[in-house]
């Protein structure tokens, strides 16, 4: 075993086998001597067994990292104020509620950064009124569309100067493209798609909790030796803070875009109607499955969704049949959603669909088959024909 690795402390191991089940990679077995043995070929050092062991008998050793940084140089919480095509996004505001909490716990300032083409001072004021103490903005015509490399360069420069201990942004299409690029550029850790954040005040470590393995497990992840600690957070998990008239600092951050050699341009941004596509931000999703019957019948789902002010989702079967476009697909090979209410209409609830929606607060299912697996996870299940139930229901609304 080298400097780094995993070790079973034989004196402490009782051979109870908890680690065997905890290992996501099937790499542990109890050997003839009744002691846990780790197959190094299979082990990925994920650490699941270390935590699972009731006897502290598994230890993970890390080599001393030579890329230590001085953590005391870093202070404050910075959030990414995402702007899409000139519009401040909802997730930008959501970051301020969780950001505020962490900043208050640490007794530090909450700042935000806006990048865009125009009117950023106006958005900066909105951010202040939602809880930011300081808003930096980087404004240039060339920054109107989201261009990964340019944004990452600008953010990298800002982070170098501001030196926040924590940097968070939404796990939106933009956030999930931009933050990994920034994290790799400044060589720090990034935890994706968190659903919960907390901070350990003693160490300053951010406790980043997220689902993994298709939602089968939750993991809490730390970035103990690097700063800033970066995380993306699932849209709609954190509340939008109350808006009140407040004072704060608005600072322009100078970034000369002309010094950066651009090798990519955004030729056109095609904006589709919002209630149709943005599943991430929807409070309510009405989702169509093959049980809807035909492309024509889908109109019923659209009308129903419209009445509820909901977004329209779909199972893969419906997407593959060409009844609706891919951005609507919920599930393992589509989008993961967690709205307040998810209404599954004519969806059987195959596991690949479930992993994409089972964290929804309330699940309502309409399905004619009483044995459909969707009923195993539905808060309210309705056994019947959706083409009858929904029209009846719409008469009442």
């Amino acid at each position, binding site marked *: 075993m080298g400097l780094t690795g995993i070790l079973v402390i034989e004196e402490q191991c009782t051979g109870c086998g908890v680690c065997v089940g905890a290992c996501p990679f099937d790499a542990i077995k109890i050997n003839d001597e009744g002691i846990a043995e780790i197959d190094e070929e299979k082990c990925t050092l994920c650490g699941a067994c270390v935590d699972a062991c009731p006897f502290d008998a598994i230890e993970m050793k890390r080599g001393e*990292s030579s890329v230590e940084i001085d953590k005391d140089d870093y202070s404050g919480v910075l959030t990414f104020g995402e702007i899409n095509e000139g519009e401040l996004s909802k997730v930008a505001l959501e970051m301020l509620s969780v950001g505020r909490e962490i900043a208050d716990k640490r007794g530090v300032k909450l700042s935000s950064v806006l990048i865009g083409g125009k009117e950023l001072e106006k958005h900066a004021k909105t951010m202040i009124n939602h809880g930011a103490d300081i808003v930096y903005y980087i404004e240039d015509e060339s920054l109107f569309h*989201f261009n990964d490399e340019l944004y990452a360069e600008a953010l990298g420069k800002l982070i170098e100067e501001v030196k926040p201990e924590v940097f968070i942004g939404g796990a939106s299409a933009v956030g999930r493209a931009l933050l*990994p690029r920034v994290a790799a550029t400044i060589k720090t850790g990034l935890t994706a798609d968190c659903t919960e954040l907390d901070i350990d005040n003693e160490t300053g470590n951010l406790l980043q909790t997220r689902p993994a393995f298709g939602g089968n497990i939750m993991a809490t992840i730390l970035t103990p030796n690097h700063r800033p600690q970066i995380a993306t957070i699932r849209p709609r998990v954190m509340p939008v803070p109350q808006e009140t008239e407040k004072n704060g600092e608005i600072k322009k951050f100078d970034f000369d875009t002309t010094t950066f050699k651009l090798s990519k341009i955004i*030729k056109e941004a095609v904006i589709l109607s919002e209630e149709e596509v943005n599943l991430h931000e929807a409070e309510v999703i009405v989702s169509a499955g093959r049980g809807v019957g035909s492309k024509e019948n889908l109109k019923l789902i659209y009308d129903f969704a419209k009445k509820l002010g909901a977004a329209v989702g779909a199972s893969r079967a419906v997407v593959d049949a060409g009844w609706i476009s891919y951005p609507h697909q919920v599930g393992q090979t589509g989008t993961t959603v967690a709205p307040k209410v998810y209404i599954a209409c004519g969806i059987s609830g195959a596991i690949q669909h479930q992993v994409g929606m089972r964290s929804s607060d309330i699940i309502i299912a309409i399905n004619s088959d009483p044995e459909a697996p969707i009923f195993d996870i539905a808060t309210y299940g309705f056994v019947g024909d959706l083409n009858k139930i929904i029209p009846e229901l719409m008469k009442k609304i």
Partner: protein
Amino acid sequence: MNIFVCIKQVPNTTEVKWDLEKGTLIREGVESIVNPFDLYAVEEGLKIKEKIGGDTKVIAITMGPPQAKEALRDVIAMGADEGILVSDRAFAGADTLATSYSLYKAIEKMGDIGIILAGKQAIDGDTGQVGPGIASWFGYPQITYVKKIVEIKDNKMVAERLTDYGYDIVESELPVVLTVVKEINEPRLPSLRGKMKAKKFEPTVFTANDINADENRIGLQGSPTQVKKVFSPPKKEGGEKFEGEAEELSEILFGKLKELKIV
């Protein structure tokens, strides 16, 4: 020109279950598969090769334990020209930063880089960070969530990428890193010839030494993030179930929607 496709071997997460009593994962009999999104990346690589021809090669690359070779076999069967296995005990425990660094070093060693393809995300980690990470290590442009490649010409490409509001039409110079979504294509099934080739296939194995990796950037040591705790998510159970006539059911449903304040 080489087209690199990053593929990852993952446990089929839909088969992984949580044992509530023991609070552990049940992995018995769970098969390993090629991450579903990566098959779209392989297909797109093959399509690009067919379109531009010449001496273009599709090279699949994976970092993982020795058994990850099976994942390479699967995509060799689809038609990939070569398969590289980046494998060394020293890589174990890599988070997305260390993984993207290791893949970057391996791809750099192969050279003649035109396009690097990755999946939108891996279904075990669900992070989608490795693609942008590789792009960053190289300093190459990246286009994430690509749903269509419109054209490739004169060392440039035009692609459509999904956004939260629709899609963007993006033009980039090569080399470029792309991550792809399911909408982009329909992955082909292995051909008979492919299967024969896969059977005999042995990957080129790169160790940490082979790719000249900085030991502080790989494996556990090169990974800023650490898993502190793993636990079971709150259990979802079926709730109330109603049967009856449509009229009756719609009445109950209406009541529930009112309770939830969405009507």
